[in-house]
């Protein structure tokens, strides 16, 4: 682990009881783990859902896939849901070819679609 904290840190926005993290650049392993910690702590403090927007992410390897799955597992335990939005087609093709589905992860085509998932839930 290196000490370059701060650089590449993903900010998390709160919209009502939904947390939104838009990953706009390549993440180092350390910044991916920092995001996992931030989102899990914020979800524990009260959130119905988490949206992780990854349209800016050029590759998802097994490490980042694991981080995304663990965020989803933790928010599930905290009575929330995680939706991964905006995955690039080339990333999806590569994940499948690797034998790496994102099991247990909900996905949406865009941030807007992901937010609609939660709006639909609120109406019930």
């Amino acid at each position, binding site marked *: *682990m*290196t000490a*370059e904290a701060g650089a590449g840190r993903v900010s998390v926005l709160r919209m009502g009881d939904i947390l939104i993290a838009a990953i706009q650049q*390549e*993440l*180092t*392993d*350390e910044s991916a783990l920092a995001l996992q910690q931030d989102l899990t702590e914020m979800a524990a403090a009260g959130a119905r859902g988490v949206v992780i927007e990854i349209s800016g992410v*050029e*590759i*998802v*390897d*097994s*490490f980042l*896939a*694991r981080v995304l*799955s663990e965020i989803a597992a933790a928010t599930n335990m905290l009575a929330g849901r995680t939706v991964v939005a905006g995955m*690039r*087609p*080339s*990333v999806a*093709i*590569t994940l499948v*070819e*690797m*034998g*790496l589905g994102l099991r247990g992860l909900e996905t949406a085509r865009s941030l807007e679609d992901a937010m609609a998932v939660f709006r639909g839930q609120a109406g019930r």
Partner: protein
Amino acid sequence: MSRDEVTRLEIGSDVQIAGARQAVRQAAVAAGFSLVEQTKIVTAASELARNTLVHGGGGHMELAVVENSGGHGIRLTFTDDGPGIPDVDVALSDGYSTGNGLGLGLGGARRLVQDFTIESRPGGGTTVTAVAWSRMAQRVPR
């Protein structure tokens, strides 16, 4: 293949893994890889660089653009002086993990390239070579 130009990058931190990904992406673009082909080789590079760092204790990557009669390819060689892999077949199987991944690092990387070799012996370090060709060159049988 005297035209091969080899770039060498140190793999000693997660920031250098990100640097390796960037270098491979640039080489793949320059070699005329499609977007999906770029994504596959960059993802494979990320898996292999992390293996070098986490399991090999750091090492280096050599990156070369190679040519055959059909077109361009990218050859990546990852070398470390770590403890080595006791059983390569087991390490390549899905679900095998000694680190913090999903146990799909080596096996996953192998599926993303056309040629893949591992040389390793306990205590003697590990060298992984992965070669991917752009589609124009894929007359070479798999």
